[in-house]
């Protein structure tokens, strides 16, 4: 399972040195990964734009050389050339678009994978403070918005080229007209940028609100059984309508800004066209340029509206892309909750002696505990918060506030997290079952199907499977909600047993299981884990009865210890606690 753990880890390095992620670096990385394709796309798009710019020019020539002269041969010749131009521009677009689109969709998938890999990082920390639904949106919608910049960038470059070609054509027709275009365009572009800026801010806020509305919708759908149970569909709906209206308000404010932007672009382009018509018309009236030249100039000016609108469009998408890139950067750059350990830590099979020295934090008070290799230990923690803290430390989900956990004398923190979890597996009581068949889930954490029947029997998961329509091959849907609590818990327990770690920590593994089945599980567990270190964090008398030793944690320290039988006989508080 962790064969890559050997040489794959980079040398130890404090996590604070991790490469910082900013919106700009995310965007740059996304574009840089497909440099070659983007360059090819930009070149081909330039060819396309040149071809497009030549269309009005050639139409002007047809009017001057054929329509004006009435020469059929000239008509055929120039129309043929126009045809070649169309063929050229069409071919350039076809292959340019394929290159740009390739960069776009692959950049999209790449960002999604980067996010998934960061979220899946063994050191954790990326999901803190975020809804699963919100994270899914981030990996879909925001990734898409960043990736589309890959398509927009070559378009923008080609638009620049188109303006250049048009200007050169115009310069050949007339120097003053050409200069007008060359000098008039930059201020126009600057104005477009200026108007586009506030849109970036608006767009960010809008997406935040819209994401919130979707997040709330996803949250309600996730909790739908709870809502139905208390007949709260109406109340939930009323709450959602509130969120939805707020999101609508934000969207409308953003679209008003967008409409203003679009109107300004149209106004700017229209005025620019009027200016060209004025100068061009006067030149033609004075006989400086031909009628064909004027037609071409006006056609080019109209053609220019296209690339200029592309600037507006591209800058708006760039603004959205930047806002999304910043959101993605936040997740990619989130701090890790635990260190990455030291790859040089000896890689031998551990004996399984677990030692806790002076563990503090989260309600624990300099806790010392020794679990000899091979022992089956019961840990009774009346305070759930303290139990949860202890389990998080053992699972390497958090660093202890003070003290350390050692495995065979080696600090657990010295192991890379994956290796630590291979040796010390903490099976949470709310463990998640994933999409796939029941047996896929059981085998997910284990070395193979060698012990499958044994662990299925020990966890009574075989019995759970038998009551399902497709047995072990039953598909698990939506986090196992198609299974009963008891079935889910037994499948999760079988998975933990199949993983066969040196130290197995089980947190309340049988709370949803009936008393008879629980007793059978306790016996099965003792058999399967014989000679392997096992820690049972529970107050169930059925499970505690099979342990070799029990410790009772109160106020963060060990208050009592002994065998279950002795404690049950001698310790009234213990008796009340486990059988109450």
């Amino acid at each position, binding site marked *: 399972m962790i064969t890559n753990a050997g040489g794959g880890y980079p040398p130890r390095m404090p996590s604070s040195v991790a490469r910082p992620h900013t919106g700009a670096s995310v965007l740059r990385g996304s574009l840089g990964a497909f440099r070659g394709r983007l360059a090819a796309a930009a070149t081909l798009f330039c060819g396309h734009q040149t071809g497009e710019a030549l269309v009005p020019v050639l139409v002007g020539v047809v009017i001057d050389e054929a329509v004006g002269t009435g020469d059929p041969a000239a008509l055929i010749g120039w129309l043929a050339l126009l045809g070649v131009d169309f063929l050229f521009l069409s071919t350039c677009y076809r292959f340019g678009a394929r290159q740009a689109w390739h960069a776009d969709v692959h950049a999209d998938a790449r960002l999604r994978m980067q996010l998934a890999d960061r979220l899946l990082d063994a050191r954790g920390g990326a999901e803190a403070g975020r809804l699963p639904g919100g994270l899914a949106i981030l990996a879909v919608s925001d990734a898409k918005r960043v990736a589309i910049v890959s398509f927009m960038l070559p378009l923008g470059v080609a638009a620049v080229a188109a303006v250049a070609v048009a200007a050169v054509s115009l310069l050949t027709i007339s120097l003053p007209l050409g200069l007008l275009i060359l000098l008039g365009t930059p201020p126009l572009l600057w104005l477009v940028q200026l108007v586009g800026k506030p849109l970036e801010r608006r767009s960010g806020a809008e997406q935040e609100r819209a994401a919130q509305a979707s997040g709330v919708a996803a949250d309600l759908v996730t909790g739908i*059984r709870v809502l139905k149970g208390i007949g709260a569909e109406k109340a939930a709906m009323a709450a959602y309508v509130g969120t939805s209206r707020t999101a609508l308000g934000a969207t409308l404010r953003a679209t008003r800004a967008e409409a203003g932007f679009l109107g300004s672009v149209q106004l700017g382009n229209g005025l620019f066209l009027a200016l060209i018509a004025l100068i061009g018309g006067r030149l033609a009236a004075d006989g400086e340029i031909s009628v064909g030249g004027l037609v071409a100039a006006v056609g080019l000016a109209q053609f220019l509206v296209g690339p200029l609108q592309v600037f507006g469009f591209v800058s708006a998408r760039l603004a959205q892309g930047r806002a999304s890139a910043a959101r993605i950067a936040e997740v990619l750059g989130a701090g890790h909750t635990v260190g990455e350990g030291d790859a040089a830590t000896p890689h031998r099979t551990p004996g399984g002696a677990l030692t806790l020295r002076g563990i503090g934090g989260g309600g624990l008070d300099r806790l010392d505990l020794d679990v000899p290799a091979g022992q089956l230990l019961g840990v009774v923690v009346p305070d759930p918060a303290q139990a949860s803290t202890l389990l998080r430390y053992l699972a390497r989900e958090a660093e202890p506030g003070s003290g350390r956990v050692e495995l065979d004398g080696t600090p657990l923190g010295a192991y890379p997290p994956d290796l630590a979890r291979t040796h010390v597996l903490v099976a949470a009581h709310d463990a998640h079952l994933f999409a796939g068949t029941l047996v896929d889930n059981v085998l997910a954490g284990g070395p193979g199907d060698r012990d499958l029947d044994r662990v299925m029997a020990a966890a009574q998961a075989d019995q759970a499977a038998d009551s399902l329509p497709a047995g072990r091959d039953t598909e698990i849907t939506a986090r196992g909600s198609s299974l009963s609590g008891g079935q889910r818990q037994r499948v999760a327990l079988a998975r933990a047993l199949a993983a066969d770690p040196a130290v197995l920590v089980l947190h309340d593994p049988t709370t949803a299981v009936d008393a008879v089945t629980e007793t059978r599980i306790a016996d099965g567990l003792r058999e399967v884990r014989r000679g392997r270190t096992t820690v049972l964090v529970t107050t169930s008398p059925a499970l505690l009865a099979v342990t070799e030793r029990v410790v009772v944690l109160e106020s963060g320290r060990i208050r009592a210890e002994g065998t279950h039988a002795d404690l049950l006989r001698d310790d009234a508080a213990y008796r009340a606690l486990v059988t109450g």
Partner: protein
Amino acid sequence: MTRPENDHLLPVADGARMRAVLRELVAPQRSRAVLALVMLVGGAAVSLLTAPLLGRIVDIVAQRRGADAVTGPVLGLVGVALGQGLLAVLGVALVARVGETMLARLRERFVDRALHLPLERLERAGSGDLTSRVTDDVSVVGEAVREALPEFARAALLIALTLVGLAALDWRFLVGALLAVPIQAWTARWFLTRSAPIYAEQRIAGGAQQQQLLDTTAGLATVRAFRLRAQHSARVRARAEHVVALAMRVVRLQTRFFGRLNAAEYVGVAGVLVAGFLLVRGGGATIGTASAAALYFINLFTPINIVLFQLDAAQSAIAGLRRIVGVADLPDEDRPADPARPADSRVRARGLGHAYVADHPVLRDIHLDVEPGSRVALVGASGAGKTTLAKLVAGMHRPSTGWVDIGGARLEDQDPEVTRGTVSLVTQEVHVFAGPLAADLRLARPAATDDELRAALDAVGALGWTAALPDGLDTVVGAGGHELTVVASQQLALARLFLADRPVVILDEATAEAGSSGARVLESAADAALRGRTALVVAHRLTQASSADVVVVLDAGRIVEQGSHEDLVAAGGPYARLWSAWSGLRGPGTGETR
């Protein structure tokens, strides 16, 4: 890879239903929609003045009327620019307002219907299908409403008006231009028939991707514990790669589509030029008219492409819309014509049976009576049918055989809302709703005052820790907020139960996932929440059973024993054996019998 799931997906609306729902949505703001349309038509008409004004300049040049004569038409162009800009601002803003408002209403209706979906249905479809509709599809439709719709309308208007202008110059120019139409029509047809199936596949792949991302992001702690990173990474990658492959198929199709449109453009412009050539040579038109005609047609390139390309955006928007409407349009719950009302809180079940899969019954022939105000405990092995029985009695699932009645009225004869107003069900499903704690509690009683909320929290023993939260009742809890322990979450569930204040309460393994140490805290909380109500409790800790009025023992979907705790213990049957295993008697004595 998503094929097996397809049968389970939620419904997709047909075209007629979709249009009907849209008409319904636009109705409340009809006048605003008309105004938006007027603005768009106005904008198109104004922009159409550009070509004649330029034609005027050409004529001025051809007629050699001097440079100053150009000023008039140029001022006209300035007017056009101003009008166009202003009308664009108003038109786009209005269209967006109409469209976004419709979209928000549709989204709300969607969530409303989604919340009323029968549980069986929802679980089969998976929550990813639903969330992908509410996020992805809403965003695609939103973009269409915001960008494609106004653009499409403007371009279509422009084309219509330009063709009229071209005919006004000389009908033969129009003939030349129309040569392109057969190619365009054929191309559009060719494209749409090929793109539709790919788009459909794209949506499904998108839904599957979303489902996978939700599955992975919601279970990150488990992924870490079992080191399933590589597997999940591979799953996300596989979904992403499928999406990429489909996108590349789409782009290949699109670029071939544009190639054909370029050919049509060439045919059209050559047609107009040849018409001009013939007309000028025959003396039927001046060279200025021929120039104006050519300019007109060149100006049509962009709007025609917009219209044809938006067919594509329209198609994806329609696909998304149909998926949204499919859910939004689900029928409201069945309401009996003459609903029966429960007279009291007595619960009865007769001949009750249920099978999730045909011929695989999990519950058979259940006869059950719960007296008003009494407490019945359900006991049995995992999978014995306790949860199913609880769901049937709560009206969450419809029984395959037999019936349930509450207060003398059968559930199927009751208005579902009345049933939900009578029965509460708390399951082992722990969910804290994202948002302020008070908002979570008010889901159960929207009008509750802060004092009532505190009283409910106090009753379930949660006042202590809630008061210690950073912002008290306003603390943001749930995913993304302040993380609550399982016990605290279950206490909240019981506080909601308390606030909902229903006469009949069903508690299904409510303490199961809390862990045994929290169980006792929750038992007393549940006790408080159940006081004075008719209760059916699925008991795992047998202490819960021992305090009930009646204990019902289920095995393999049948009732095998029922009676009071004392009677059953004395009877020495299955319950008595369970009780001795539980009560710790196995401790000092039996613990040694290895």
